[in-house]
């Protein structure tokens, strides 16, 4: 036990002290902070209202309605929201083309901000009938700008068409106001969970992604660490006083502990950043609401237990496989090739969740939950999406644990022979021989 502890401690210590660990650990929160602050910087850069000219060549109220619709549009919510457009309407019945030609030279000027126009919206009768409305501007490449403009124009156009058919304008405005918004709440086991539909989806996806990345990254770290000991030729010194089990378990647990520490630091800093979002926004003289919230949906204790249990077993299972791959190879290139088989297993589990998100209780989901290599990712995701009978969770967990024992047995045998084997990579037949006799 003392020896196992020494191996774990060495693995943990050298990893935590390595430059790679320090850099990637620090980089995480910096990146998150950047993601939070970036929208502020972006929005403050073009928080200026866009100057749009409505060239009004249409009969009736279409031009005026467009002018009103645009000027009522606000950026953000609440009292502090600023107008999105500064609108100028030029009546141009019969001379639309001429007005347009005269204004184009003023549009999209980079230097002359005083006379600069951002865009020309052209209101014509044919536009009302066909629904094709022309817009000329320098921001036509921005999908979000165009969507906003389309939405405003759509509403105004609808109102105009109805009015032209003689519908009461008050009635039209009433009917057109507001859009349908689904307010979703998740129900599980006959109880409201307090999660919205979006956050439950996000949670499932985020969990799958974290599991996927963690299994891959730390699994491959185990592999390269085994390889390092082999190519360093230190293995034999260790093998004379440590059992292969102590070597392998110490390595896997050591790397696992480093992984937990790193994930912990990342999650912790994400929570810290979110809870101080208002203060961070204040640094940039922006209202508190303008900061992107880190999505941290509430996680039920049951889900947390399922997540951690499957994560732990899954990590040991894949780390064992990667350790075995490391033990049977001599160079990193060789190992990368050989580890593809393992990586495909993790990737299959991860990509299956896109189908699970649609049908978390389908036959694919049920079958994958009973395969030890897929269950560690599939089960927590299913559990977060839908209600699953306890026995199904227990069965899936039991099979995964059995799988872990199987993998540990096989990997241990490959490891025992492989760590002292230099030269040619073993063929499948030789590998089988190692496992049988190891």
């Amino acid at each position, binding site marked *: 036990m*003392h*020896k196992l502890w*020494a*191996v774990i401690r*060495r693995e943990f*210590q*050298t990893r935590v002290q*390595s430059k790679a660990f320090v850099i990637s650990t620090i980089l995480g929160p910096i990146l998150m902070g950047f993601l939070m602050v970036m929208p502020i910087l972006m929005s403050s850069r073009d928080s200026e209202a866009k100057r749009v000219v409505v060239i009004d060549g249409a009969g009736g109220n279409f031009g005026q309605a467009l002018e009103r619709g645009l000027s009522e549009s606000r950026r953000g919510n609440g009292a502090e929201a600023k107008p999105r457009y500064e609108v100028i309407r030029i009546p141009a019945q019969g001379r639309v083309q001429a007005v347009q030609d005269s204004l184009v030279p003023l549009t999209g000027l980079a230097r002359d901000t005083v006379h600069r126009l951002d865009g020309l919206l052209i209101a014509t009768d044919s536009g009302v009938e066909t629904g094709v409305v022309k817009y000329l501007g320098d921001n036509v490449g921005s999908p979000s700008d165009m969507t906003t403009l389309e939405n405003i124009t759509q509403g105004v156009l609808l109102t105009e068409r109805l009015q032209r058919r003689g519908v009461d304008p008050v009635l039209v405005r009433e009917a057109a106001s507001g859009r349908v918004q689904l307010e979703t709440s998740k129900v599980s086991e006959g109880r409201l969970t307090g999660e919205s539909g979006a956050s439950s989806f996000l949670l499932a996806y985020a969990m799958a992604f974290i599991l996927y990345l963690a299994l891959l990254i730390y699994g491959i770290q185990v592999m390269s660490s085994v390889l390092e*000991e082999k190519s*360093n*030729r*230190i*293995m*034999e*010194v*260790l*093998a*004379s*006083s*440590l*059992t292969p089990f102590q070597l392998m378990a110490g390595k896997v647990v050591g790397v696992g502990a480093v992984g937990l520490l790193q994930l912990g630091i990342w999650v912790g800093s994400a929570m810290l950043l979110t809870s101080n979002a208002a203060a961070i926004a204040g640094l940039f003289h922006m209202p508190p609401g303008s900061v992107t919230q880190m999505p941290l949906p509430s996680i039920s204790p049951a889900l947390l237990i399922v997540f951690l249990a499957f994560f732990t077993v899954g990590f040991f299972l894949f780390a064992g496989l990667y350790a075995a791959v490391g033990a049977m190879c001599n160079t990193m290139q060789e190992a990368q090739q050989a580890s593809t088989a393992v990586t495909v297993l993790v990737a299959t589990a991860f990509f299956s969740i896109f189908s699970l998100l649609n049908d978390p209780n389908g036959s694919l989901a049920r079958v994958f939950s009973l395969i030890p290599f897929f269950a560690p990712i599939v089960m927590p995701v299913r559990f977060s999406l839908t209600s699953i009978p306890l026995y199904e969770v227990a069965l899936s967990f039991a099979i995964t644990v059995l799988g872990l024992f199987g993998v540990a047995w096989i990997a241990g045998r490959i490891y025992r022979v492989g760590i*002292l084997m*230099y030269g040619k990579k073993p063929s499948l037949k030789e590998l089988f021989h190692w496992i049988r006799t190891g």
Partner: protein
Amino acid sequence: MSEPILKLERVTKRFSGHVAVRELSLEVPSGGIFGLLGPNGAGKTTTLRMIMNIIVPDEGKVILFDGRKTGRGYSEQIGFLPEERGLYKKMKVVDHLAFLGETKGMKRKVAIQKAKQWLERLGLHDWTSKKVEDLSKGMQQKVQFIGTLLHDPQLVILDEPFSGLDPVNSQVMKDVVVEIARSGRTVMFSTHIMEQAEKMCDRIAIIARGEKVLDGSLTEIKRGYGKRNVALGFSNGGGRAAAAILQDRTLVSKVDDSGSTAEVELAPGAEAGRLLKALVDAGVGLVRFEVVEPSLESIFIAKVGAAAATPIASEAHHA
């Protein structure tokens, strides 16, 4: 002979088709220096690995100490320096030694303290907190050596310990090995350089192609071969003049001719005086004529023939 600290009983190990070690029996008595000799590919490393239980013999038994546990179980009492030795490049020297001590069951604090004493003794104290990768190859080898001895093992097993060392460092390590043996502990080391073993060992075993050729105490072995060897040193050109006489099979049965010196084995019934007379009569210029104990190397070659000094090609390929 005192109670053996290590016994091998008809140990055999095969690797995919070829036999690396065949029915090898050895007894290493407690105390002193034991040399395991043999040419490259003879099975020395395999034998030592089996003693350490890193690989398991296919047949036969390895009995260490009182025989209750196997090699790894006694790792607290054994220091093992394998031929394939390495260190973690990114670790500090003292941390590394502390870790090696811990793998031998030492407390970390004690291991660090011991490590510092050894580093001081081998002239590496300035490097205590440096990373292993900053050390020269010779210094790394010293660190590995310290790692082997840190826990004061009763039995020290070294696989080719002096290979790749310069004479100065080699001497430092020899002194340590001799001192360990003087303190009543046991050192077993393997080497393919016979002269080295000849100078240091109390007992030896020679193996070739996985089989034991010879074992016993060095003095007994040499006595067994009697004083039938003569070392010759020639003055300028003497070697050529002597060649005809050394070909005379009634006088000389074997010649190890090195040009200006030669070691010859007298033919059965021949006397050293007759050889000297023949040489003097032929006018050979001599600077040395000495009846000597046979060298280990000449015993080895006499015993197994020069062919066995190299492994069989097909076997070497597998190994």
